[in-house]
């Protein structure tokens, strides 16, 4: 006796009986229903592997039965039985998630073949899903493992530097303290790099962007500017934002978009001299909402623009003082990709750089 349960939903008693007999002889457990509502009820109770559904029945239409069952019973294989052997209705059903169709009249051989194929397909589908789940689980585990194993030694070294200052701070000369300070700073840089690298790895996962919501980009921009205000003030740079009152909403993940904005503003502030300006404006049309972030910095040579979003790419000759992890713009690009958006840089030497972020509406 096979374990597979098969459900036949058809208002035609001869079809129900015929299918029942043929499939029982093959060893399947068969349930039948004469109309849609009864079929849905039975499906919920017995949770079949496969269901044959007549498209044309009195009561609930067959395609609606198909929809409900495919939502209720994961992994079920659905085959539509179509009386008016029209290819159009069959194609419509396939679009709605049916795996195959059987045009009436059909032979027991045809029924057996479709059943075997459908169940095989189901087996492969379940296997593929399990493999994918396993892979996702391993990836997540790996990321967590790496983050812990790589952070631990760094954390410990930093703690020793702190201990050094606590224990011997007063007796150390300024030159030695300076060395300790510089070491701490470089270790912090390495730690930031690991954090950024982990952020970027996480973007690849399926769980990323699951919590998409309808967002007002202008309020996220205001928050980003607020977050960067002190830093910009310290660097002597003014920030202005010219916004439309009713910017259309976009779908996305608020936290990561905020980090993209903060990143771009932070970058602009690094490469803009004192008394400089960062001016931000938004615009939209029927399809996109865009943010443009411009600075009055030294600009980026044109031949570098295409590589800005590559990991660890550094434009030579720029200030070393604010050297970052080399992953900030890569992070931004990945986030924009995940939102099906675009990020581009344009620049004029000596005048400044503009980063444009475009989100689909």
């Amino acid at each position, binding site marked *: 006796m096979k374990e597979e349960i098969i459900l036949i939903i058809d208002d035609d008693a001869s079809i129900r009986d015929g299918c029942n007999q043929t499939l029982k002889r093959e060893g399947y457990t068969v349930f039948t229903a004469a109309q849609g509502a009864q079929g849905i009820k039975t499906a919920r109770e017995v949770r079949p592997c496969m269901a044959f559904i007549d498209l044309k029945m009195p009561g609930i239409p067959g395609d609606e039965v198909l929809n409900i069952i495919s939502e209720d019973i994961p992994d079920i294989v659905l085959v539509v039985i179509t009386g008016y052997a029209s290819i159009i209705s069959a194609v419509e059903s396939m679009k709605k998630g049916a795996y195959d169709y059987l045009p009436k009249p059909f032979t027991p051989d045809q029924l057996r073949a479709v059943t075997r194929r459908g169940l095989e397909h189901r087996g492969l589908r379940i296997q593929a899903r399990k493999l994918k789940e396993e892979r996702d689980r391993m990836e997540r585990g790996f990321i967590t493992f790496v983050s*812990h194993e790589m*952070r631990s030694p760094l954390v*410990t070294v930093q*703690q020793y530097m*702190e*201990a050094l*200052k606590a*224990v011997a701070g007063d007796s150390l000369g300024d030159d030695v303290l300076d060395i300790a300070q510089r070491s701490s700073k470089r270790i912090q840089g390495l730690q930031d790099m690991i954090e950024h690298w982990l952020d970027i790895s996480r973007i690849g996962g399926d769980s990323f962007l699951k919590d998409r919501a309808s967002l007002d980009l202008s309020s996220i921009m205001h928050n980003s500017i607020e977050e960067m205000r002190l830093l910009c003030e310290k660097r002597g740079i003014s920030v202005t934002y010219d916004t439309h009152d009713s910017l259309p909403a976009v779908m996305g993940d608020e936290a990561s978009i905020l980090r993209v904005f903060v990143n771009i503003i932070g970058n602009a502030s690094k490469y803009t001299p004192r008394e400089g300006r960062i001016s931000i404006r938004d615009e939209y049309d029927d399809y996109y909402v865009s943010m443009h972030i411009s600075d009055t910095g030294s600009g980026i040579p044109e031949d570098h623009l295409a590589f800005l979003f590559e990991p660890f790419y550094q434009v030579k000759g720029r200030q070393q003082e604010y050297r970052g992890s080399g992953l900030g713009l890569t992070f931004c690009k990945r986030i924009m990709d995940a939102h099906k958006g675009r990020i581009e840089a344009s620049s004029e030497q000596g005048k400044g750089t503009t980063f444009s972020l475009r989100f689909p509406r």
Partner: protein
Amino acid sequence: MEKKKILLIDDDRDFLAATQLILKSGGYEVFLAENGKSGLEQAKAIAPDLIIVDMMMETWSEGFDVVSKLRTSESGKKIPLIMLSAVDLNGPYSSFEAPEGVPSVDLALNKPISAEDLLKYTGQLLA
């Protein structure tokens, strides 16, 4: 005046050593435990005034287990506790899936922690 006793629980020996140096420079008597079990035993034996425990040790939740056991024991119910973690504690425990019914700690801090902050917080909790 007798020195206040602090028990440090962490599976990283170097982290213990470094943190011990900082706490000693602040005038505390420091006891070390390299795992949760030894930490719980020492907590009972020496009756510390403050316990600092790492969240992830041998297992991800070893720190939580230690805190739970301390909080349900008669002697450990009221001892001030600091939870330390190298994973981001954006608001206590948030980026880590905390087990059901996580017991309260007095402070959750990120590793590494500056000597200045560590001594400030321990001073506050022991005041």
